[in-house]
């Protein structure tokens, strides 16, 4: 679950409940193909409202602190009123709910999509082209965030966060067992062995078998290029040498029982962190809020380190990160962009999110980094200046990564193939192979051009 804002992991029951609700909802809708959920795009036809007659827009999202952002926006704006609906995070049923609404023709005016899913939504024709609306706005965002939201020369989304990979670890345990914080992946493996030796019940981190996004970020960091475009055709290569290296490395950790294989943000994962049986988490900036709210009893025990590297040169992949998009049928484009821009590029918007206490997004608008830093209480991390670690990481995110046009297909195939990873019945390589062939076959079915 690589969302800028996984729902609070400790409340996994709630998460599953929401997922279940989404499932139930979606199933009913599959049969009826009428939408569940909100009544969709607003009735207002005017593109800009007035204080007397504000434009009403609907917004679906799940990022942490979103409710606070919407409340603050509504309190300070008389011309636009946002009706927010909290939906399950994308992976846990949120995308299902959105796709369903798109199909039924009643999608919300604005909704959140992670970077990796943006090309899929564009490809479905579910979102509006924002190119002419963001001409002035886009200079505010980091080039990396703009690149990920620009497809075929058009801007499709307004980015919220730009999260580098980082390594969260139990500082107290690492100190107790005299283990150095790893800066390279070789050291990471050594540290994993030392930790397991010091306490046979403890592992250094977790391989998430339900979510390939960490593997994707690792490959990205190693210099892989899973997707690319040339001459109006896609190149798909999930098995380039860089990815092979990452795959072999993690396969080794799994095989030698040096990392756990669990579902991300599951009850099992949280319990294992609570008991100190897992002493680290390979995550991203947004995870700081998630770890903090999952483990209230471990305040002061955790710290954040830059992600280990392959060759000592700092580098990072992107992990998660959300954007704001406008639904294809929305008639309130101006209000939609006004709200999205407020949430992503104003100090007030960022402050409202971070002061919720559960969000730690690293803003895609570099000017807001001090706001985020000031708003986040780092007592949980022993007062460490974690936003400096995030900032240093964000500066080293490798340019040039492109997400594929049907990541839902790619990820589902990989997830399914991870099912036997824990018991040794399958390998990460096989999952990559499955992802590759499922993606190619989907592109072929949809008539998308694939380069030879």
């Amino acid at each position, binding site marked *: 679950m690589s969302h800028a804002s996984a729902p609070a992991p400790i409340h996994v029951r709630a998460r599953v409940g929401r997922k279940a609700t989404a499932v139930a909802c979606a199933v009913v809708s599959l049969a*009826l193909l009428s939408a569940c959920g909100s009544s969709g795009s607003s009735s207002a036809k005017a593109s800009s409202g007035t204080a007397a007659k504000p434009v009403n827009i609907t917004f679906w999202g799940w990022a942490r602190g979103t409710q606070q952002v919407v409340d603050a926006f509504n309190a300070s704006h008389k011309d636009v009123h946002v009706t927010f609906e909290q939906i399950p995070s994308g992976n846990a049923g949120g995308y299902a709910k959105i796709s369903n609404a798109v199909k039924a023709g009643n999608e919300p005016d604005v909704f959140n999509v992670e970077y990796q899913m943006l090309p899929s939504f564009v490809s479905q024709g579910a979102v509006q082209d924002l190119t002419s609306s963001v001409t002035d706005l886009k200079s505010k965002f980091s080039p990396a965030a703009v690149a990920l939201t620009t497809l075929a020369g058009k801007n499709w989304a307004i980015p919220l966060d730009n999260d580098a990979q980082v390594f969260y670890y139990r500082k107290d345990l690492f100190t107790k067992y005299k283990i150095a914080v790893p800066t390279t992946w070789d050291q990471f493996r050594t540290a994993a062995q030392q930790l397991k030796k010091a306490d046979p019940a403890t592992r250094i981190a977790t391989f998430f078998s339900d979510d390939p996004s960490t593997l994707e970020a690792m490959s990205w960091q190693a210099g892989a290029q899973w997707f690319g475009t040339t001459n109006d055709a896609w190149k798909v290569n999930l098995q380039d040498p860089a990815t092979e290296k990452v795959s072999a490395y993690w396969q080794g950790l799994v095989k030698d029982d040096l990392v756990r294989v669990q579902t991300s943000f599951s009850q099992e994962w949280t319990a294992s962190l609570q008991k100190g049986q897992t002493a680290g988490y390979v995550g991203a900036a947004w995870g700081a809020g998630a770890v903090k709210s999952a483990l209230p009893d471990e305040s002061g025990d955790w710290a954040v380190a830059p992600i280990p590297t392959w060759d000592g040169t700092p580098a990072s992949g992107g992990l998660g990160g959300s954007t704001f998009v406008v639904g294809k049928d929305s008639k309130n484009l101006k209000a939609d962009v006004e709200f999205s821009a407020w949430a992503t590029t104003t100090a007030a918007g960022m402050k409202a999110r971070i002061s919720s206490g559960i969000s730690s997004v690293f803003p895609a608008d570099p000017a807001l980094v001090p706001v985020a830093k000031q708003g986040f209480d780092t007592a949980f991390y022993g007062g460490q200046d974690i936003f400096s670690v995030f900032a240093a990481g964000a500066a080293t995110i490798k340019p040039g990564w492109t997400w594929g046009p049907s990541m839902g297909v790619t990820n589902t195939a990989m997830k399914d193939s991870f099912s036997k990873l824990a018991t040794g019945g399958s390998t990460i390589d096989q999952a990559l192979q499955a992802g590759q062939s499922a993606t190619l076959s989907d592109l072929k079915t949809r008539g998308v051009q694939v380069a030879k």
Partner: protein
Amino acid sequence: MTQLLSPTRGRRAGVRGRGGAATLLLAPFFLLFAAVIVAPVGYAVYLSLFTEHTSGLGFGGAQQVFSGLGNYTRVLGDSAFRDGFLITAGYCALYIPLMLGSSLGLALLIDSTLARARRFFQLALFLPHAVPGLVAALVWMYLYTPGISPVVSTLGSAGIHVDFLSSTYTLPSIVNIAVWEWTGYNLVIFYAALQAIPRELLEAATIDGASGARTAWSIKLPLIRPSLVMTTLFTVIGSLQLFTEPMILHGSSSSVISTWTPNMYAYSAAFDRNDYGLAAAASVLLALVAAALSFVVTRFGAARSSTPKRSGEATA
């Protein structure tokens, strides 16, 4: 229909009067039936004949194109869909004997002269069925999850290390949830059938010196065979539509894959992969299999009550 079947004028008039009332009374049913069954099924069939088509990099938007039976070929050619049926078959093989065996055994026990506090046991055993499947699955998932489950930790401290959510135990774990949910329900059906057996027969057996077990085997079982056949076939159809329990487990265990059952395949096709045509085709195929099995059920039902029905047909 009724008019075609009525040979004489006089009768036709009478039938028409009754037909008007019947139409009025049946109208709400047929309206709802058309709105919530016929229309969606029709739309699903329609969807299954189309596929989304795009060109170039795919960013120009997609359009629906007619693809005939293309989606059906793709579904049938997908080993994940066929595997779903294999898993369902394995599930049936484990679940049906276990669940029906226990509910039949328990029903016979409650029906036997030895039983005390019958009403209590009947209610207690039926209670799990009153819990919605979704809630049941969530509760069981909690009991299965290592690290938080009291069951797993108790077993662990006794030296038994089981991971109920690992790929080895997925099927038995889900069967267990279903058994827990449905045993009580079928028990009630069996118990009702057992209660309907004429007491003279049982008395006669006792007088003839038959033991309790012998009575159960040679008298009670043959007499409740119709309900046994019905529950079996309904259970098979229910199993084909297995969805909620594995879907909940899928959320926290990767060993339950997204296409674990045919129903989950359809869900995943629509909402993970955005392939609505494929999802609709899979749903239609699943519905056809279920319809075929339903046909078998009704045939069995008709065979059981054939004598009175035939005489009815003869007079019409």
